[in-house]
């Protein structure tokens, strides 16, 4: 364990751009590295990514290990795993962080097994103890409890949820080193035959979200929320029950078992506010609640609330907003 030192962040990229969760991990990594007085490095795999590697330095990395090869343009599971595992064995970081994205949650488990080390999923909090032990905090049992987890092997590997850690401000004066690494190619075994963008923008990126819950009477009524969202330039979200009923697809789900969102405005319509739902939207700047039950827990989290029937309130809001813009 003595051989291990420093923190490393996996910088996930899509189409040549780093996923924002990578910057968040660098922000948190920077804070922890400074606390311990150790180095923060990052590993980036892609095709012609030198500019992006520099961005990682601007966002907090001391060193970026860059694997530049066309094979890394898309997610090539086994080549990603092989090269990252080799790097970790060479650099021996004490902590290795991944974003808990689909890609991160698919890749990290393989690397942790290849390294024979422990992995903690989907952390929402991280802290460093004096001895270099990483305290990994994650919600468990539908977000009803928080488990504080420690790992006795090194590196301590964790996936960390998107939009829970603040990233640093970009600083072009930050200095760091880009180290180009030799790429070893192994058989991919998986072939991407086709790739396409799913139509809508991911809900995690939306600045304003209008979400519906049990208070909706039928699937079609999401169109009412969509009307309001469209007027305000936002996206439509959902609590879990409508998703489980198949009224709206899973990508729209906000909450513990869905997406964590941090929009400027979150409008909860007919959502009572279970701990599981609150876990996914408590980071919103402003929360507006519309619910006919005055005792609904959502009102305790709301900055603005109306006790009333969403079928009455939303059309009124729409009318009012339309009046404003005409």
């Amino acid at each position, binding site marked *: 364990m003595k051989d291990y030192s420093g923190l490393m962040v996996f910088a996930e990229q899509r189409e040549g751009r780093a996923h924002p969760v990578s910057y968040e991990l660098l922000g948190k990594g920077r804070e922890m590295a400074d606390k311990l007085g150790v180095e923060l490095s990052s590993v980036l795999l892609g095709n012609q990514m030198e500019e992006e590697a520099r961005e990682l330095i601007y966002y907090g990395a001391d060193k970026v290990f860059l694997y530049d090869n066309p094979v890394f343009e898309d997610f090539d599971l086994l080549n990603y795993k092989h090269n990252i595992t080799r790097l970790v064995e060479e650099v021996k970081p004490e902590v290795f962080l991944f974003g808990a994205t689909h890609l991160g949650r698919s890749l990290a488990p393989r690397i942790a097994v290849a390294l024979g080390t422990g992995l903690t999923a989907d952390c929402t909090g991280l802290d460093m103890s004096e001895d270099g032990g990483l305290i990994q905090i994650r919600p*468990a*049992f539908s977000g009803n409890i928080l488990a504080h987890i420690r790992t006795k092997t090194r590196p301590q590997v964790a996936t960390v949820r998107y939009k829970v850690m603040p990233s640093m401000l970009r600083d072009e004066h930050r200095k760091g080193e880009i180290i180009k690494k030799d790429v070893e190619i192994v058989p991919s075994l998986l072939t991407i*035959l*086709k790739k396409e963008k799913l139509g809508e923008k991911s809900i995690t990126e939306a600045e304003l979200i209008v979400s519906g819950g049990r208070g909706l009477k039928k699937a079609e009524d999401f169109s009412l929320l969509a009307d309001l969202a469209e007027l305000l330039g936002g996206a439509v979200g959902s609590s879990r029950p409508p998703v489980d009923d198949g009224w709206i697809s*899973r990508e729209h789900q906000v909450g513990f078992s869905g997406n964590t969102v941090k929009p400027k405005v979150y409008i909860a319509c007919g959502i009572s506010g279970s701990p599981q739902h609150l876990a996914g939207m408590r980071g919103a700047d402003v929360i*507006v609640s519309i619910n006919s039950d005055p005792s609904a827990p959502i009102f305790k989290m709301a*900055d603005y609330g109306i*006790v009333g029937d969403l079928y009455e309130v939303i059309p009124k809001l729409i009318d009012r907003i339309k009046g404003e813009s005409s």
Partner: protein
Amino acid sequence: MLRIIVPIKQVPDMSQVKFDTEEGRVDRSSAAAEINPFDLNALEAAVQIKEKLGGIITTISMGPRQAESALRDALSRGADDTVLLTDRAFAGADTLATSYTLASAIRKLGEFDLIICGEKTVDGDTGQVGPQIAEHLGIPHVAYVSKLEEVGEKLVVVCEMEGERYLIESDFPVLIAVTKDINTPRLPSLRGKLNARKAEIKTWGAEELSSIAEKGRFGTQGSPTRVHRITIPAEEGRKGRIFRDTSDEAIEEITNALYRYKG
């Protein structure tokens, strides 16, 4: 004919589980046990392949003796064979030890073509064990599979990651982890239930795996991670402006707030 393995987990019904919010303890006995709902989608996917192409489905589960009922449930839904991994030595396993134990048992079963896992479990919620099994076995995996496009000489699946849809081709053997979007699991058939009641559940402990696995990698001993503390999330409330009616004033003020904050 495909040899398909479906690892399943018995979990408490999450809508019934009680929590001691003072102590931060989970009272597992407070809820009925069932097959992890995501694993039902994995099993259904396996059964659909079997119906089309023929095959043998083996479900495998690690857990206490009582997990036998989950395996009987799987038999009644179309599985052909079962293995229960149960031993004190397996207890207290994190995902590394769990995946190692399951992978060792899969090795012992012999050759296979396809392993189908659920996306994650509702109690652990890590989604790690599937990819970890694949790594232990040295086979590729595809996670977040929402559709089986083609099952033939090769496997072609649709997987969705971060707002992109991929069509991915793989040779066998391969492991896939499927999402709930892939299908709607069927209910157990009556005949299946009758057969399941009589079926013999194969049970393996550490001893049965000793020829292919290291004992030190099972259970607590083989688990590098451990929960050292449990806390209750602090519920930080907001002191909001709550209107008790839908008056024009309320609509006016909320509209103004929306414009002020949405940027």
